[in-house]
């Protein structure tokens, strides 16, 4: 079997993605993405835009959730992720944890 050796690079893209790139990579329509951007659930400038848009695409296809539901779920998932990072930091700083 052929084994390729290759180097990984950091995935976060500080300059962000274009609307077309996100649409192509996630199979979300341009109109759906624009709606998610308008309500602040996805930001083209954030480094994790692709990851967030991909979660949106999964929620839409796997649960057949409408866009307002996707936007709400993304906002809550982002809040949970932020809290988990804070909790992880507090646990790490706690002696004997």
């Amino acid at each position, binding site marked *: 079997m052929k084994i390729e050796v*290759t180097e990984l690079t*950091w995935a976060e893209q500080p300059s962000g993605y274009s609307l077309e790139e996100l649409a192509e990579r996630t199979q979300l329509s341009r109109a759906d993405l624009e709606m998610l951007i308008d309500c602040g659930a996805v930001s083209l400038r954030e480094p994790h835009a692709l990851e967030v848009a991909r979660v949106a695409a999964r929620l839409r296809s796997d649960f057949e959730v409408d866009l307002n539901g996707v936007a709400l779920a993304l906002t809550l998932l982002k809040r949970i992720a932020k809290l988990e990072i804070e909790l992880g930091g507090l646990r790490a700083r706690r002696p004997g944890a």
Partner: protein
Amino acid sequence: MKYKDYYASLGLERGASDADIKKAYRKLAHKYHPDVSKDPGAEAKFKEVAEAYQTLKDPEKRAAYDRLGTHSPGEEFRPPPDWGPQSAGPEESFEGIDLADLLAGLAGRQARGGRSGARMSFRGEDYEVRADISVEQAFEGAMLELHLSIPEYDAEGRMRRVPKTLKVRVPKGATDNQRLRLAGKGGPGLNGGPDGDLFLNVHLLPHRLYRVDGHDLHLDLPLAPWEVALGASVEVPTPGGPVQLKIPAGTSAGQKLRLAGRGLPNPKGASADLFATVKIVMPKNTSPRERELLKEMADSSNFSPRSELLRESANEN
């Protein structure tokens, strides 16, 4: 080809109604969806449930699947010959083809009426792979071997999955929940479209000494009472090797001592720090001489560690 029992995956009988199929999928999808569940086995379970639903929700695919008859899950079986590529021989026609891909291909072929449509180009699929690495690997960088199953398309556009192994070098300084990208190592593009990317989601394994907070590391530093009272120079483990740490006289339990630059390397700048939290440990067994010295200290000291506590309590009453 291995048989998959899609009805069993959804916990249903073979004659289940469309409404039952949808209901079972919704229930299981909410339980196992990787964006919702933290269970490490949830993603695999969700894929199984989603694959079953993709087939059973589509009347054509479900009818084709039902025509295969009943087999045990994992049992080797041969689909009808007219399902295979016409150009391939009878013995090799289904090699490397997954049942779900075959059913998807059949439905697509019927939808296109056996004629190929406009040759639009499509970007290849992006792959997501989880990589569990140790703190030591995050500190030094690591070589990982990834075993993937990559789709390939034959002349008739039929998809087969082929095993592929990639050796990837994770750069030092990767930490929990970071993502790394391998450009062009995802699924192949179609009709001249670019290949997808492979994303590696990094997870740090729990360590017996270090707790990780971003790139900072924390550890508990056990010290003897006389080391905190008189001060000492003690050896402290760090991922880069042990270092000597000066303990100031009068150090208390819970105090944090910072070892600058001894945490994980940070690709965006200087290495992070390691914080040692002081933990005062008494010997389990004390000798008569040690007890004598402790008694002598207790008799000659005026120190009252609870004086402030008692003063505050008195003020409140």
